Structures are given as structure tokens and as C-alpha cells.
């Protein structure tokens, strides 16, 4: 039963998985954002990492450098700031354990993947996960493509990339590095050795503008420059560098040049400040690192006798014509001269697959049939930037998923992956007025980072990443979109308890007692599920069985006198209880702990149970306190009749203080 899009409330009962939170919708790979953020909010980083890996095999990478289209969709944008989704992904990768996959029965089909950038790595991952034999053919000495040789170390350290890569390789992927297809081995040969070939070679050629003086020695192209820097080799730059170009690559080049000792680095680009394709953050950081950014200038001539001495530029008055085609217009009367000893062109990348033998576009990119992802050569597929031109890393990953799904369908007949990618989905609407003032507004948790004057002297990573505690606190800002209540209609007794306890008016009674949950209003607090007498409401991703399993794990090995502490994720500091064998389990809200769970814990290893939470200053569900207090009283009343008065302990609230307690 598809969700009915009514502009207002979507009927969630029963709820099919075809409505995405806007963050998930905007992610080209449709990562289950609310799912992994909920896990982080409870300190379950390995669970979070697992969820990310279901859709994105490069969490360490994307957690650092993704351009995060998800955050634009975050429903908190209207309240305060979007949740730091990308930084939380990094936290999952930093603190979660990459699981070793179960050994998979190998199929007989084998595939060669040409290129090991984001698209290629994704293809390799998906195919190997299905049991196909995968061999990556990579021209460069190491895997990673642009991730290693294009994006600088201070944004994406090689070690972080290696974590993702080694996880992919652990699925059982063969690697042949230093092999360039076309030169060292032909496509045809690969086609004989494998059942399919996937070309994900990316954009390897770095465009240099043919202006006077471009032949001079210290006129460099962006990609070779960045590659040399990444390998620690001599790049050939001088002390005064001008970078031509307005994209993120130009920023990477400029900031790398600063770190390599260039005292003066300027960037000139055709675009105006608003038009610059580089992300605002990159431009801002470049400026803070001392890079001059000069907009609306077009390069005219590189001056110099034996080597570069200056770059002359002319005012660019517009870049695009009415049809949004690239058609720059210049005002010759306004010119400027930048003194320089090096000019680096970061004016675009192009595909370099001329000698592969597949049909290409006029610009050199691979031509494919979008339905089948096949090139002009039978058995050869292509995906990623080599097809589309420059995109975001996450787009390349999404394309990698698609071509892998096509290959799997063609080689094995299994269409599950492709069907999954093609699944239609609706997107959750905005936060309704009635809910806005009920959400506690909080600014984003700030991440530790190097000061810019420190950063500019080193290739060390600028951002330190969240600590576990910071990550959990930031994750607690997530509204839990689409992870809220699900009604199991057959069990509903129409008691209206959910309607009465929900502070957000999410459950609504329609005619004849028919209950509907408004997903746009639901804040996934779990109050309704905690009080429903018929167990007719589930909270997405949470169940009594799961809770009991977690409790069992936490209590494992107990001699029977353990202190089982249920701590709410918002509680900053655990109280010093001085009780024997303390074990802690962090929950989204204490309401998620049912009376039965407490009573079970007391039978399976716990001598006493502690409820730590409901410190109002921090709580994101302040109204849940009353319900928790009622539950505590009910549990106490039961325990008292068994002479176990002290078996439930509710410590007094403590002051807010930093303290890591999640695990």
C-alpha cells in the first residue's frame, strides 16, 4: 500500500519503506541517514557504520569531503541549523568497527574494473559483495584515483582513504596497479579474460588554456601538480603562484601551493563570487590561509622570457549567455597584471580514454546507453565522471551502484539491486508549524579544527573530527524523520492513549476510530509506543526484542549482582553510584525501556536497575519526563511487593558537564 501523498499528513499505517526523509532523498546514494544518526545518538558507532556501508562503501572519505546535498534537505534548516550529517558519517567511520564480511561463496563470473576512484571502488564493492570475482585495474601505483591523487591530504588523509579501501578489498578483490588500459593492456584482452569490463576511469586529463606563454616551463596543469604533491614529489612550483580557475580543484591547488612554500598565491577566475563553482567553505578557508581570490578575470597572456614572470588578465563581465551556455564576455579596457613565477591551470578535467576503443562524445567522454550502462563495445560498461563529466564524489558512488546492478543483472539474472535503485520514493514534507516551537533549538556542535595559521604550514588534516561524545550530542539534534511511529493496525485497540500522550499531535483519529500517524509531526520520541497497551506501535529501528538483546549483551558474564544502568543519550555525566558491577546501556529516551525489560534484566544478571536521565536542561524530549516518572513509580510498586524496594534506582539530576560515557 503506497503512502498517500496528501501534502499534509502521510498515512503511515501500515508504512511501506517508500517515504524518505529529505536528507535521504537528496543523497544520490540514498544512504539511510536517520538510521545511522539514531545509532550514533545512542553511541552505537559500529551499527551506524554498518548502516552507512549498506549504501556508501566510502564512509571515511565521504564523511570528510562529501559536498553533503543531504544537509540542504535537513528539516532542521527551518529551526536552527542542519544536522552535521557528513561529520557524523565520519564519526561512524572513525569509531565504528568495519565488520569483516562473512566468506561469500564465489561465483564463476569475473569482472574487470578499470579505475579505482569512487565509482570504480563502489563497483568493485558491490560486485564482490554478490560473490563475483573482481579485479581492479589501476594505472597509478595506488588505489583511490582522484581521492588519493587529486584531493589533498589536509582534506582527505591517505590513511582515511585506506580504511575504506581495505574494507572493500577484504571482500575479496584482486588488484593490478601500475597497469594502464589501452597502453599496458587492451580492452579487448580484458574482455577475453573476464565476463564483463567496467570502465570507471574518471577524468585524467587536466586542461590547460592555450594562451600566449602557456608553453613556458612553470606553466602547470592542476592534476599532475596535485598528484606530484600527493606522492611527495617535486612539483616544480616557485614562490609566487597564480591559479587559474574557480572550482574546488582550483582551491585545492591554491591551498596545496601554500603548503608547499609558495609565499604568494592568487586565484583568478572568470566567475563572479556568486557564480564560483567552488564551495563557499573552500573559498573561505583558502582566503583565511592567505590565498587571494580574484573573481571576474579572464587570463589573457602569460609573460616571461625563459620562464613565467607574470599573468595578464582582463575583466570578464559575464560568463554565461541567456541560454546558460559558456560564452564569456570581456571588457578589454580593464586589465590587471599578477606578478608570478608559476601559473597553474585548474580549468577543467577531461576524460582520457581515446585509446580504449569505445565510442566517445565530442568532449571525449564515454558514450553509454543509460538504460543498460553499456558502451559501444559488447560486454564493456562505463560509469562515473568518465561518462558524465565532473560531478560530486557521492554522485560517482551512486553511478557505481547503478552500473554494478546492471552488470549483476546481466551476468546473473538477479535484478534485486536494480529494483532497489529504481524504487520510487516520496519525500517527507516540512516540519509543521505546530511542531516547530516544541523542538528544543540548539546550534550545531562545533568540531575541533586547526587554526588557519597552523593549518597552512602543514598537510595535516585540518578537521579533528568529533569525539564520540560530541558526535552523540550532535546526533541527538536529529529529528528522527521517518524513524518514528508505525502502527500495526490489526492490534490497535483504539484506546487513544497515543493521541493523548503525544505532544506533537502526530497520531490523529479519523472517522470511526481509524488511527493515522502524521509522519511530518512525529519526532520519534517513542512516547506512544511506550504507552500503547496493545503493542500496536513500533518505532522504526527499535523493538523490545532488540532492546532485550542489547541488555543481554551488556549483562553477559554477570554473576547476578550487576547494576544495569539505562542511560538516556542526553545525559552528559553518569552519576557515581558506588554500586557493584556497573554496566551501562545508552538509549534514545528512557521511555524505550519497558517495565518488562527491567523485570527481565532483574532475572538475568542484574541485581538492580538504574534509570539515569530526564535532566531537563539537556533533554530533547522534555515532556517525556512525566511518563518516565509514572513508569518508575509503577515499577517500584511491583518491586515493593516482592520486597525489592531498592532494585530500581533513579539518581538525582546532576549538573551539565562534559563526560564521555557512550559505548
Amino acid at each position, binding site marked *: 500500500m503506497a503512502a498517500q501523498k496528501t501534502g499534509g499528513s502521510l498515512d503511515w499505517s501500515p508504512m511501506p519503506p517508500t517515504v524518505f526523509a529529505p536528507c535521504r532523498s537528496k543523497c544520490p546514494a540514498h544512504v539511510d541517514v536517520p538510521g545511522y544518526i539514531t545509532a550514533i545518538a545512542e553511541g552505537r558507532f559500529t551499527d551506524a557504520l554498518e548502516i552507512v556501508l549498506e549504501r556508501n562503501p566510502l564512509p571515511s572519505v565521504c564523511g570528510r569531503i562529501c559536498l553533503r546535498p543531504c544537509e540542504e534537505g535537513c528539516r532542521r534548516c527551518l529551526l536552527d541549523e542542519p544536522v552535521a550529517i557528513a561529520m557524523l558519517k565520519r564519526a561512524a567511520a572513525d569509531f565504528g568497527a568495519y565488520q569483516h564480511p562473512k566468506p561469500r561463496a564465489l561465483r564463476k563470473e569475473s569482472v574487470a574494473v578499470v579505475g579505482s576512484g569512487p565509482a570504480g571502488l563502489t563497483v568493485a564493492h558491490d560486485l564482490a559483495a554478490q560473490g563475483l570475482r573482481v579485479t581492479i585495474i589501476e594505472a597509478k601505483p595506488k588505489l583511490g584515483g582522484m581521492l588519493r591523487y587529486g584531493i589533498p591530504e589536509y582534506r582527505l588523509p591517505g590513511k582515511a582513504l585506506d580504511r575504506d579501501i581495505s574494507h572493500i578489498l577484504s571482500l575479496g578483490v584482486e588488484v593490478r596497479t601500475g597497469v594502464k588500459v589501452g597502453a599496458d593492456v587492451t580492452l579487448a584482452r580484458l574482455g577475453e579474460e573476464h565476463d564483463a569490463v567496467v570502465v570507471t576511469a574518471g577524468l585524467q586529463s587536466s586542461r590547460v588554456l592555450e594562451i600566449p606563454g602557456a608553453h613556458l616551463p612553470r606553466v602547470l596543469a592542476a592534476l599532475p601538480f596535485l598528484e606530484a604533491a600527493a606522492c611527495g614529489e617535486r612539483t616544480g612550483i616557485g614562490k609566487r603562484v597564480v591559479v587559474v580557475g574557480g572550482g574546488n580543484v582550483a582551491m585545492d591547488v591554491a591551498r596545496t601551493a601554500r603548503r608547499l612554500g609558495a609565499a604568494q598565491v592568487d586565484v583568478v577566475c572568470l566567475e563572479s563570487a556568486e557564480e564560483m563553482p567552488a564551495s563557499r567553505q573552500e573559498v573561505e578557508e583558502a582566503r583565511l590561509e592567505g590565498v587571494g581570490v580574484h573573481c571576474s578575470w579572464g587570463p589573457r597572456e602569460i609573460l616571461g622570457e625563459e620562464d613565467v614572470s607574470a599573468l595578464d588578465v582582463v575583466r570578464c563581465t559575464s560568463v554565461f549567455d541567456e541560454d546558460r551556455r559558456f560564452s564569456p564576455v570581456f571588457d578589454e579596457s580593464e586589465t590587471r597584471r599578477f606578478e608570478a613565477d608559476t601559473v597553474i591551470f585548474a580549468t577543467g578535467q577531461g576524460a582520457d580514454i581515446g585509446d580504449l576503443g569505445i565510442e566517445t562524445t565530442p568532449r571525449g567522454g564515454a558514450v553509454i546507453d543509460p538504460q543498460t550502462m553499456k558502451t559501444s563495445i559488447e560486454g564493456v560498461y562505463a560509469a562515473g565522471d568518465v561518462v558524465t563529466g565532473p560531478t560530486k564524489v557521492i554522485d560517482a558512488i551512486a553511478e557505481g551502484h547503478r552500473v554494478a546492478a546492471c552488470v549483476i543483472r546481466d551476468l546473473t539474472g538477479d535484478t534485486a539491486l536494480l529494483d532497489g535503485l529504481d524504487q520510487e520514493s516520496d519525500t517527507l514534507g516540512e516540519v509543521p508549524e505546530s511542531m516547530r516551537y516544541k523542538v528544543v533549538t540548539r546550534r550545531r556542535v562545533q568540531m575541533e579544527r586547526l587554526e588557519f595559521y597552523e593549518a597552512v604550514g602543514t598537510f595535516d588534516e585540518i578537521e579533528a573530527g568529533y569525539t564520540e561524545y560530541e558526535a552523540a550530542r550532535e546526533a541527538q539534534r536529529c529529528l528522527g524523520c521517518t524513524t518514528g511511529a508505525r502502527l500495526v493496525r490489526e*492490534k490497535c485497540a483504539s*484506546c487513544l492513549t497515543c493521541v493523548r500522550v503525544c505532544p506533537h499531535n502526530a497520531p490523529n483519529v479519523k472517522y470511526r476510530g481509524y488511527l493515522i500517524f502524521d509522519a511530518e509531526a512525529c519526532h520519534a520520541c517513542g512516547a506512544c509506543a511506550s*504507552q500503547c*497497551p496493545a503493542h500496536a506501535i513500533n518505532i522504526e529501528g527499535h523493538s*523490545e526484542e532488540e532492546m532485550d538483546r542489547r541488555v543481554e549483551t551488556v549483562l553477559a558474564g554477570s554473576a547476578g549482582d550487576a547494576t544495569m544502568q539505562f542511560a538516556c543519550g542526553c545525559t552528559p555525566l553518569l552519576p557515581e553510584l558506588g554500586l557493584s558491577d556497573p554496566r551501562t546501556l545508552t538509549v534514545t529516551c528512557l521511555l524505550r525501556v519497558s517495565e*518488562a525489560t527491567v523485570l527481565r534484566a532483574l532475572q538475568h544478571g542484574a541485581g538492580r536497575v538504574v534509570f539515569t536521565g530526564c535532566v531537563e536542561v539537556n533533554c530533547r524530549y522534555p515532556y517525556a519526563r512525566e511518563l518516565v516518572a*509514572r513508569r518508575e513509580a509503577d515499577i517500584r510498586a*511491583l518491586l515493593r*511487593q516482592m520486597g525489592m524496594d531498592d532494585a530500581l534506582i533513579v539518581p538525582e539530576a546532576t549538573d551539565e558537564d562534559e563526560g564521555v560515557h557512550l559505548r
Partner: protein
Amino acid sequence: MIVVRAKPLEEVFDMVVAHERVLLVGCNTCAAVSLAGGEMEVATLVEALRLMAARRGRAIEFTGSVLQRQCEPEFLEELGDEGYDAVLSLGCGAGVALLSDTTKVPVYPALDTMFIGAAKGFASWQAECSACGQCVLGRTAGICPITRCAKGIMNGPCGGVKDGRCELGDRDCAWVLIYERLEAQGRLGEFGRFGEAKDHSVRSKCDVWDMSDKGGEPK
């Protein structure tokens, strides 16, 4: 709706202590709506009884189950009481009674049936009807003098009313409420009418009140 309430745990345990395999049966109608006998409450009671049994060194197995309604024979067909030596019902008295008709093993009530009432809000109900079989609510503007008057009198208020509150101090005087409402409806003449003594025979004429297929008047 029939409003029910959990008995003290101690009392329930004493009922089943001599048994070995007890089946708890919840009810997804009035008992669930009363937040006393639904699946959640069954799960809680199962664990509480298990814990209590463990602490007292009794080896008793407790299993939980739920029926849609315990007062319907068709629903009781799914009872599944094979192998149990006692049934503990989390339904109202009618549920306990029908369960007792249906199963051979003893059936014990885990709940007390309190009244026929209406919800006031979350976890709160008020008695509104005593099932007297002779409804006079039309004359008392919807406030039942049998149920809401502590003395159940038909001409009130008595002399115990204090500031509009009942002599018992725990509720508003029903007859004051009746007066005010009749006044608001412009029906004070109704208040002055003589209230007939209740006909209690309606409830006690026969011990099985058969409202099935006879048609016409109740026996």
C-alpha cells in the same frame, strides 16, 4: 466501556502459587483500553510473576497471550490452553466467567472490574453507569444518580453536601451537578419532579439475563 484495574501483585501471585504452568490471557478490548490487560500489561505481569516466583523459589512457568476479547466464544477458540494447569485472565469479570466456561483448568482474575465508565484523559476514567437496567439519565441530564451519587439516591442532594462536594469528600455532589445542568437546560421543573424509588427487580428477575432471540421484553 468496562473499566478494570490490576489487582496487587501479591494477591495475584497467591492465586497461582500452587500451579506449575500458568497461561496468562490478555484482552484487547476494554482491558487494553483500561491500560490494564493489553499485550503490554500481560508481558509486564509475566515478568513480574516470573521474578516473584524466582525469588520465592517456586518453579512456575508463566506464558503470556492475548485474545481480541474474552467475552466472545469465537475468540476463545484460539485460547490454546493445552498443557497448562491454570489460566490467569487479564479481562473483566465477564471474560473470567466465559473463560471458566471454556476451559477445564481453574481461571483466576488478575484484574478487578470496577465500573462502566468514560475516559477523562490519559490513564483516567470516571464511573458513569452501574448497569441498573432502568436508565433515568434523560431526567437527570446525563448524570447517573446511582453511579455518581455515593448514596445512589433518587431525590438529592442529601444533607451531606458541602460546597458542592459530596459528604465523602472525593467527588462533586452528583445532585448539585444535576441541578446545575437542568438549570442550564431550562429544565428545573424536572428537578422538582418526584424521583421514583428504584425498581431493583429489573436486575434480579432471573439469574441468566437472556437477551438473545426471544424478542420483546426481557424476561
